[in-house]
């Protein structure tokens, strides 16, 4: 078993065994319609996340989503634990300067299969100049549509490096989606549309 896998399993164990505190009393949010063991397990995950400086709002949102979609308590607990793991990994990958929304979006991209190290590289490239919430969201989307991770990451990196605005990145996502629906190979669609979106005068800035 790799060190990374061991570390991840230990983190899951740590999150699972973190002591139950009076999180419900301290926090006005109430975990609705869940059985007591599931509520306790989620409260422990939330406590642990707070201690690590990870945004906890997405964890509560995941609970609500699961309840409304009719999932049982244990399934919701697993989903919340996995999300907390992804948020923690995203938090470490993006560093101290990332916003809560960037961390949420990065966790989503990781769940789609984008390695944390790629997201960290994007964050270091863009720094404080722009938010990466939308680029990470689009990255997750195009990977889920079959664009290979490296191709998708390169496309997003070139767009961000060329100074593309959020509107341009939204247009890029829509165009790639339509191209794939019309039968284009996902990688080709992403590569072609990324070149088309990057402005010619900014090509020198594209990160090779």
């Amino acid at each position: 078993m790799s060190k990374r896998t061991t570390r991840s399993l230990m983190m899951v164990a740590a999150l699972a065994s973190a002591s139950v505190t009076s999180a419900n009393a301290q926090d006005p949010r109430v975990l609705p319609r869940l059985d007591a063991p599931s509520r306790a397990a989620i409260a422990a995950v939330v406590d642990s996340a707070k201690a690590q400086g990870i945004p906890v709002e997405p964890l509560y949102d995941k609970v609500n989503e699961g309840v409304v979609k009719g999932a049982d308590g244990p399934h919701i607990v697993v989903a919340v634990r996995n999300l907390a793991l992804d948020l923690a990994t995203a938090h470490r990958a993006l560093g101290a300067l990332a916003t809560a929304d960037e961390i949420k979006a990065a966790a989503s991209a990781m769940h789609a299969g984008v390695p944390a190290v790629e997201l960290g590289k994007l964050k270091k490239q863009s720094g404080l100049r722009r938010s990466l919430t939308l680029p990470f969201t689009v990255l997750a989307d195009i990977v889920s549509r079959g664009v290979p991770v490296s191709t998708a990451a390169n496309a997003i990196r070139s767009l961000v490096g060329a100074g593309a605005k959020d509107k341009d990145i939204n247009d890029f996502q829509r165009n790639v989606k339509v191209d794939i629906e019309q039968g284009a190979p996902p990688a080709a669609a992403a590569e072609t549309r990324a070149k088309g979106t990057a402005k010619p005068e900014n090509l020198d800035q594209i990160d090779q």
Partner: protein
Amino acid sequence: MESSDAELVTRVLHGDVNAYGALVSRYRDRYVRYAVHMLGNREDAEEALQDAFTRAYRSLSRCDEPERFGAWLFRILVNRCRTSGARRVRRSQTFVHDEGALLNASEEHPAEQTMWREEIERAVGELNQDQREAFLLKYVEEVGYDEMSEITGVGVSALKMRVMRACDRLRELLKEVHSA
């Protein structure tokens, strides 16, 4: 629903001083690590972080991007650590959080592990302030060089040189320990 940084900053600026407590709670554990390693002991680190939070509150109206309050606070903390007094290393302190211990659990004997950690802390303490700051920002807090330049006001080339020298010095110091 948990409030965002921007929401909390807005509330504070509108006179809700208690909303600042939520920002303190959100960032205190995230940034204390940098201060501990930079200043060498927990007391000084806590004092520097308290001071950074207080200064941030007093100049909150000058925070241009409230949604990036955390980054802005970090800059204040880095500057505060730079101007702080002499570094004192205390051997008796442990900084390990339970989950941190689990994350970094190794198969080494716990006593050896503690000794190794103390040696790392001592070695980091031997670096000059500029090298220590650059090393911690680059490798421990994983800040990119452009951001480091914005935070510290130092050029990227100079920062890269400091990081390189810090790495070389740390390897030398820890090799000396190993061969002793």
